[in-house]
């Protein structure tokens, strides 16, 4: 991890006020933002840890806990809400045995995230699975996709 953080730092060292870019870069490299990363950047750049932490907790794009291999993003915007995205979210939670508090399965395979609006309101409710768009998402369609990913992972 140290070498990855060092590379990230090198890319942004010369710029001022690059807290967001550093966090984005770190997250794309590591999948999340570990506490050690914030501590490291803070001491190297003379920017207080609290600044990084404040930014990282403000934007929902940042994740401070390790995420699963597969990311399921459920849109909970107005249109999706009206079209019953809740049902899909509940079904996914049941299938992955996620409680209200945890968003990642215990085997680290899947993470379920809720976001405000993905902008696909015309095909609400919308769910993304590893970036693949499922419009007018029916419970069966989504669960089937999850099953197939899980099966593929098992085979590997």
């Amino acid at each position, binding site marked *: 991890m140290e070498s990855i953080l060092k590379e990230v730092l090198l890319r942004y060292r010369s710029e001022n006020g690059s807290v967001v870019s550093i966090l984005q870069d770190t997250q794309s490299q590591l999948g999340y933002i570990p506490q050690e990363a914030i501590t490291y950047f803070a001491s190297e750049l003379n920017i207080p840890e*609290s600044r990084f932490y404040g930014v990282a907790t403000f934007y929902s794009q940042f994740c401070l806990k390790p995420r699963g291999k597969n990311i399921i993003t459920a849109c909970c915007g107005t249109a999706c809400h009206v079209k019953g995205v809740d049902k899909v979210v509940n079904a996914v939670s049941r299938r992955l045995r996620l409680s209200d508090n945890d968003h990642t399965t215990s085997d680290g395979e899947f993470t379920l995230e809720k976001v405000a609006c993905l902008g696909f309101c015309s095909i609400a409710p919308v769910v993304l699975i590893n970036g693949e768009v499922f419009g007018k998402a029916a419970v069966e369609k989504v669960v089937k996709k999850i099953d197939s990913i899980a099966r593929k992972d098992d085979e590997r």
Partner: protein
Amino acid sequence: MKMKEEKIINFMINDMPVKAKEGTSVLRAALDNGIYIPHFCYDKRLEVYGGCRLCLVDIKGGRKLVTSCTTAVQEGMEVYTETPKVISARKTVLELLLVHHPLDCPVCDKAGECQLQDLAFKYGASEGRFSAQRKKDPERLDAPVVQRNTNRCILCGKCVKVCYEHQGVGAIELIGRGFKTKVSPAFEETLNCEFCGQCIDACPVGALNSSYYRHVSRAWYLKDHDMPCPYCGCGCITTLSMRDGKIVRAKGVEGKGQNDGNLCSRGRYGFDFISSPQRLTKPLMRKDSLYSNNIVSSEGSTCNDNPFIETSWDEALDFIAKKMSQIASEHGHEKIGAIGSQRCTTEDNFMLQKFIKESIGSSNVDSAALFGYEKASRSFESVFGQRLRHISWDAPLSADFMLVVESDITSLLPVWGLKFLESKRKGSRLVVADAKKTKLSRHSSSWLRITPGSGTALINGMINVLIREELYNKSAAEDVAGFIELRSSLKEFTPDVAAKASGVTADEIVNLAREYASAKERIIAITACASENTKSSSLFVAAANMAMLMGDGPESLQVPAEHSNTLSMIASGVQAGVNGKNAYEMLYQSNTLRALYIVGEDPLVMMPDTTAVENNLKSLDFLVVQDIFMTDTAKMADVVLPAAAWAEKEGHFISATGNVQKLEKICSSPGEAKPDWEVFSMLIKKMDSRAGLMSFSDVSMEAQLKASSFMARLERSKGRPGFIPVELTIAEEPDSQYPFRLVTSTILQHSGSFSMLSKNLDAIASEPYIQINSADASRLSINPDAFIEISSRRGSAVAKAVVSDEVPEGTLFAPVHFSSARINALTYAAVDGRVPLAAVKITKI
């Protein structure tokens, strides 16, 4: 820097004509003219934020209400602060704030002085239209001195900005988003910061509070007194809140004193030292010295192993007078000496020197300032022909280039240190030359990590460049005596040579010299404290040489006096005169004295090479110590007298900026403790029955007269200036046996015996420690928090290791004031221009 002429704007607030400088905000102008506009997030120290929306005002002709904090005044503008429209908007803002405010005013320390409470009261927003949703975060009581209750927070963000922008720390931040937002340290850990407490004073509600004040008093029972702080030379005004004859709180109030509302952790939390149970309450006499003088028979008193017995003032003073007269007649007056205190009032010090000089007839009066401010002042005088003047509070602000040499200003004079940060924020260059990573070095434009103690070499290197590249002020410098000598002495001291001696590169020295020379208004700031061991008189001489070479006046060298009353102690006559012995001769040279009178100083902890001091004190026939608690030095005394502390006596302080400030007596002193001046008044009468007792007003008048005439002489006196070539010599270089350099100083929370008695400050920093670089620690396999022993050729001390890259490899740092690990047993006492750095070794335990 010359300020450009500022335009004055005329406009109206509530139909009243108001004037303000161009660029002033409407809110500031209103407040300056006594018109209150409610506000939460505005603070004059900070960049305007405009977040709380409470300072809305109506401007005639404007389409909508505007926030007065973000609106600049304009000619002819007509502002209304309390129209029905404004009041309605303000009510809505308050209503929204009260939706999730817990309204736990009955148990909130802030009640009675809470802005939210006052405004809710004023605007009568009692019934909200929204259903209340309360936050239920647990209170955070885990950190020392600062308590957080995020439920009461209205998210104005002032604490966050004061901490980050103004204080330069950034320990807290607004964490999260929306309803869940709260003020917290990163990762919601326990708050761990400087503990300046500036956030507490900034908080408009009860979200941030002082632990020691929790549920102590309702605000309306408090009586406030403004007093100068007893700690450093800043001379900040602290507002002390009293309840039932006790100080229960200290705060900074905007507009009071030159600190203008700012305080550091010592000023805000250190006041409780006066109520320490360790205070002395009765005069004490050593049994042994009573037996040997046949005052008390030794029979029947062996069962008690306390070496002292309590006595009355009368007996104690009779004994002192008798012994002093006896020693004076047997060995001569000049065998008696005294050490004064930089923490005692002008009156106290004046009476001490009066007693010694007039009643005893000796001129041996000096203080620990010899190792600090006096050292700097005399070096300065030797070059500029006049003694150091007091610092200027705003000197950093008017400079566009600041060079700070081996001085942790934000720890030693924390509030003045903020001015350097402010100046840097406003665009000035701040260059810090220091081996240790400090708050100033972190905020500097450039940090030169020089070898400890090598400041003289760095400056000499710069002078070489200035002369070689002809960057100096020829017309001013070349006529001054000693110029030729200075030039020839530093001819060979090229940047390459200087680089080798100071541990930075030659290019860095050349660039620094060029930058220094090209600045319009430059200052060099150096602290002069007895506890620091990286500076010798040669550094101050070198700095003065460089300033004079540029044709700069004495004010371009800013050297602050260390303690609350250092300047006035010197001014009131506590300094070694021509015929008198100085503190070094009295405490380090054997057989100088037979009797010594020490007031408010603990040489056995606070002065270098304590073993030498101890041996010298042991050889005395008679030692009197007058202090507020049983110091290590007092334990060696024949007579110990209990003194009244700050806030328990009247008197005056002169701050490092030269402000004469009055102290009130607001508390009673414990037991029979008496003000120092009164003790001397009684002693003078004991020595000579014809002398009358002096009242405080007599003493004060005489003392003030003496101090002010001294200060006035400082302004006037002008000897002949002349360059003095100096070179860097270090007392003890590391070698194979003692491979580390030991750097000492005081730290932010502690500066000596006062702070050590404070329970609040003890909660923040209670343990002695030794900082060691991580590379050294891993090479010697020293774990963090492991106990290590360090020893020099003179002594040793044991303390916990703190592994930190604040110190460079090969260097250890240790604070000196903890008597439980007497670091000064290792240090070196040098008054001859050598840097008193000590070489030490580490032994693992």
